[in-house]
């Protein structure tokens, strides 16, 4: 006890000296912190990265598999421009002319290598030994009605077009622009493509109002990520206004508000400097950092300011004296809460999703700086600003105090009952929490306010799917794709895929083999099957290769030494779990029906996202354990009590379980963004526990209260503070929950539930547990009935 008192005295002395120092050298301290913040900010750079690859770490197995596939075949991205003529028929002279015109224009897209449209489709027809290869509709202006009808019939029969470039009825068509991004700087390359295509579409719409135009594809996806990041960054402004409002209401002091504003802005400026120094490019998940820092940093300042103003207003202390006292009282709690928040955010590095590493590190740095500025800039500024004493607030506070006392009295009267009820509720919600399923459909990351989402939905509903799975099916020998056995198996795999309910379109080399075989036999439909002779197949392939148009080569579908070919299944909008199930089924089919070299695994960006949530959860698990251990240790040290440190795990862990339990009732599916909330919120909600327990212990140790009285004391002293910080946190995360980007908005929504749950648990379950575990002790000691109980 002596040693503890010494330690406590030491920290008190340290905090006092710190405060005295800051107040004595207020101007140098202020100038130094201004220089520090602006100096860091001068290193700052706000860059954005929209490339969907940023979501995957280099060691991500799905990314590795997809990269391996892209190494074998042509690697490219695309923009799909979908046209829906208002007359509901693509095949009119005017509409075909418009398509041709837009196709020609689309060739000017930066980095484009190929433009595919219904008009420039290479149609092959055979008459005897003469083969005619031509654009399906070249110079449509010269076509007669009969010719256009013929074009329509050909197009709607073409497996390479239907469900890819046109729909079954011929009322919607796509122009697919393939781009080869150099990949040097996605932050400039992607916007270049986007700006060009948007301008092209705007011009087209002006000239052809008879078309509805929709845009989707990988480049628009990247752009949507890019723009989501920029939009979410703008939420900072809203949060800033809330911070000003909240501080004004709570402190009722304009100078205190200005000082708080300085602290939070300096923290954000420092974080921006951190971005620049570490060359971090912002992504949607990491772009919420200013809002998070604002939300979390404002609590530090408010704690210090409220105590300071109380000392001045209620206790009538002098400004300097009150500042030192406030710093003495708050230095340790603010330090501990900052430390736990930093630990919580740093554990995001355990995850498998790089944007969340960035988020964790930026916020951790920002919070460290917030602690520094709250204990330097803030007291220095308050020492400089004048203070006006007011007395009227005392009574209002008194009334509230009564409310918290009543709550305390209520709780201590029925600890067993409350423990059982909360345990029951928590148990039910925990059970429900386990029923959540992962779902990372990246189109659904964007809500309906984002055009990419609504456009992609239209394309999904009316033309083709956005999601796909690719298989690189090997033959086991160089040139083996021409082996008739391989072709037959591949054909069977293609047929099997076509039968699957979730499949919209299949692109396989066996289709090419069938088509060329038919052409070589004067378009005789009975030859629409794979060749039965290897030389024949090889020579047909050569012929096919000779007929490919500009920007296309076999490498789109066949690897360089012709030992493997790629099968692409386009899927309808299905959930991640269904996607994985489909891919597993396809892999199993190959295992069951094809020789070993043909076994392949399903890969694609879709698959990468499908498994991202699992990966993140798996890798975050260790991070969560580490966070829990570290934070419990901090608590044990801070409270100087092992048992209570252990007990704190309950109120720290259960809010997350409750959060996910409610989430199951609300939504039922969780995405990658939500996986981080355990580590993240742990560092935040632990503050409630720390404050409550430390006041409880103080009452027990210093005031000699029994457990019940100590609980009531804790309610009276920190009840209001906890409600206040919870409200600030809720405000911040509610702002974030308005994000149009689901990784952020879902994360924020569940955090709102968790923070609320944490407060409720700290008000009901925690005190009940504290009474229950203190029972044996309290029987021994004399129960002191504190006066408050008789209130």
């Amino acid at each position, binding site marked *: 006890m002596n040693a503890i008192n010494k330690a406590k005295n030491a920290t008190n002395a340290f905090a006092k000296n710190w405060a005295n120092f800051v107040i004595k050298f207020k101007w140098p301290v202020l100038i130094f912190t201004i220089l520090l913040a602006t100096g860091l900010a001068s290193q700052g750079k706000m860059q954005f990265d929209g490339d969907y690859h940023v979501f995957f770490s280099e060691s991500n197995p799905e990314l590795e598999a997809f990269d391996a596939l892209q190494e074998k075949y042509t690697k490219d991205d695309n923009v799909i421009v979908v046209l829906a003529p208002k007359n509901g028929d693509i095949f009119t002279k005017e509409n075909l002319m418009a398509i041709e015109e837009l196709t020609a224009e689309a060739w000017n897209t930066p980095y484009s290598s190929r433009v595919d449209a219904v008009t420039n489709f290479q149609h092959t027809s055979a008459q005897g030994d003469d083969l005619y290869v031509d654009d399906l509709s070249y110079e449509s202006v010269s076509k007669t009605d009969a010719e256009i009808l013929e074009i329509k019939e050909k197009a709607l029969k073409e497996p390479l077009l239907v469900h890819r470039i046109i729909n079954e009825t011929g009322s919607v068509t796509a122009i697919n622009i393939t781009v080869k991004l150099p990949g040097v700087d996605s932050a400039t390359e992607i916007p270049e493509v986007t700006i060009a295509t948007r301008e092209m579409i705007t011009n087209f719409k002006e000239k052809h109002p008879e078309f509805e135009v929709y845009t989707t594809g990988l480049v628009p996806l990247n752009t949507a990520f890019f723009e989501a990041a920029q939009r979410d960054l703008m939420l900072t402004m809203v949060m800033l206004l809330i911070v000003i409002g909240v501080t004004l209401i709570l402190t009722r002091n304009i100078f205190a508000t200005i000082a708080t504003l300085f602290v939070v802005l300096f923290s954000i400026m420092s974080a921006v400097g951190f971005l620049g120094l570490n060359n971090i490019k912002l992504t949607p998940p990491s772009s919420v950092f200013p809002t998070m820092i604002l939300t979390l940093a404002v609590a530090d300042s408010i704690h210090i300011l409220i105590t300071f103003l109380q000392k001045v207003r209620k206790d009538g202390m002098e400004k300097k004296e009150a500042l030192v006292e406030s710093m003495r009282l708050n230095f340790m709690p603010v330090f501990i809460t900052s430390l736990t928040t930093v630990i919580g955010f740093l554990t995001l590095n355990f995850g498998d999703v790089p944007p969340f590493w960035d988020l964790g590190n930026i916020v951790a740095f920002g919070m460290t700086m917030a602690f520094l500025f709250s204990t330097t800039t803030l007291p220095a500024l308050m020492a400089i600003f004048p203070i006006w004493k007011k007395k009227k607030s005392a009574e209002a506070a008194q009334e509230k105090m009564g409310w918290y006392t009543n709550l305390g009295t209520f709780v201590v009267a029925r600890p067993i009952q409350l423990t059982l009820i909360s345990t029951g509720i928590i148990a039910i919600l925990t059970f429900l929490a386990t029923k959540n399923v992962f779902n990372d459909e990246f189109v659904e990351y964007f809500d309906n306010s984002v055009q990419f989402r609504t456009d992609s939905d239209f394309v999904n509903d009316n033309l083709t799917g956005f999601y796909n799975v690719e298989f690189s099916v090997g033959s086991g020998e160089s040139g083996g794709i021409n082996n008739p056995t391989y072709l037959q198996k591949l054909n069977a795999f293609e047929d099997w895929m076509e039968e699957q309910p979730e499949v919209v379109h299949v692109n396989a080399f066996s289709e090419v083999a069938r088509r060329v075989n038919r052409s070589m036999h004067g378009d005789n439909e009975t030859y629409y099957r794979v060749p039965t002779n290897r030389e024949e197949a*090889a020579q047909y392939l050569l012929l096919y290769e000779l007929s490919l148009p500009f920007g296309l080569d076999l490498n789109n579908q066949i690897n360089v030494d012709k030992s493997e070919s790629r099968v692409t299944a386009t899927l309808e909008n299905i959930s991640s779990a269904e996607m994985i199930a489909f891919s597993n089924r396809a892999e199993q089919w190959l295992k069951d029906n094809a020789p070993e070299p043909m076994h392949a695994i399903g890969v694609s960006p879709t698959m990468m996202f499908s498994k991202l949530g699992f990966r993140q959860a798996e890798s975050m698990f260790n991070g969560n354990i580490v966070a829990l251990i570290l934070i419990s240790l901090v608590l044990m040290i801070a409270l100087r009590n092992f048992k209570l440190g252990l007990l704190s795990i309950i109120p720290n862990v259960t809010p997350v379980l409750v959060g996910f339990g409610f989430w199951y009732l609300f939504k039922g599916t969780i995405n990658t963004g939500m996986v981080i909330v355990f580590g993240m919120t742990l560092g935040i909600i632990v503050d409630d526990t720390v404050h409550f327990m430390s006041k409880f212990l103080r009452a027990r140790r210093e005031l000699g209260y029994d457990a019940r009285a100590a609980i009531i004391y804790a309610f009276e002293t920190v009840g209001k503070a906890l409600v206040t910080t919870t409200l600030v946190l809720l405000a911040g995360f509610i702002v974030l929950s308005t994000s149009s980007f689901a990784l952020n908005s879902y994360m924020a929504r569940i955090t709102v539930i968790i923070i609320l749950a944490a407060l409720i648990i700290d008000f009901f379950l925690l005190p009940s547990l504290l009474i229950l575990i203190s029972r044996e002790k309290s029987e021994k000691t004399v129960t002191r009935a504190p006066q408050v109980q008789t209130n």
Partner: protein
Amino acid sequence: MKTIRLFLVASIALHASFISAQTAEERGLQIAKAAEKADEGWGSSSVDLKMVLKNKNGQTSQRFLSNSFLELTEDGDKSLIVFDSPKDVKGTATLTFTHKVGSDDQWLYLPSIKRVKRISSNNKSGPFVGSEFAYEDLSSQEVEKYAYKFIKAEGDLLYVEQDPVDPKSGYTRRIAVYNKDKGYRLEKMDFYDRKNSLLKTLTYEDYKLYKNKYWRALTLNMVNHQTNKETLLTFSDYNFAAALSDENFTEVALKRAGK
């Protein structure tokens, strides 16, 4: 001082107007015609070549072909290409009649079905058997197929822009570098795609002079700057003594060549 400057300006202007007496277009066309003229009269030739395709990761694949050409002056040249490897396409052969105006005629012989197929296609911008060479790069270079514009001269090297006449061409323009001193042979060619970005560069190396008049590059290297793929053509010695005639460039000859 002032008068001297005036004099200078005047003389430079005079000099400039003297050069531009001929427009850049005229000069470009003149160079193209001079190059055609310089290479006239070779009659026929045959050559074996190795084609090495290299993708961005350095993986390569090879093909061996034999090629024969017949020079025609009133219309485009005729050419016959026979694939010698890989094994499963051995004997596959193509016969092409280049036309100065309109689409080329092409026949293909497939030994596996022992048939000649006539292919009618006005698609010249597509790649030749997976290489970085398009048909339009390999087919005989007729003056009529381009509009010309002289750009600059650097010593003996003449830079001429060539704009394809065919709207289906994959290019907006090509920048050809002629070597005036070496019978207007080509040293380098840059290809600009439809959006006018640099797509490919072809370099001509290992030139050999035949019959004291005809320059033939024995190494052609085409580099695609957008895909980082490359195609290297390595030629054996040209044979100008074969004395081939129209008879060697018929469907029957195609079948015979293929076998």
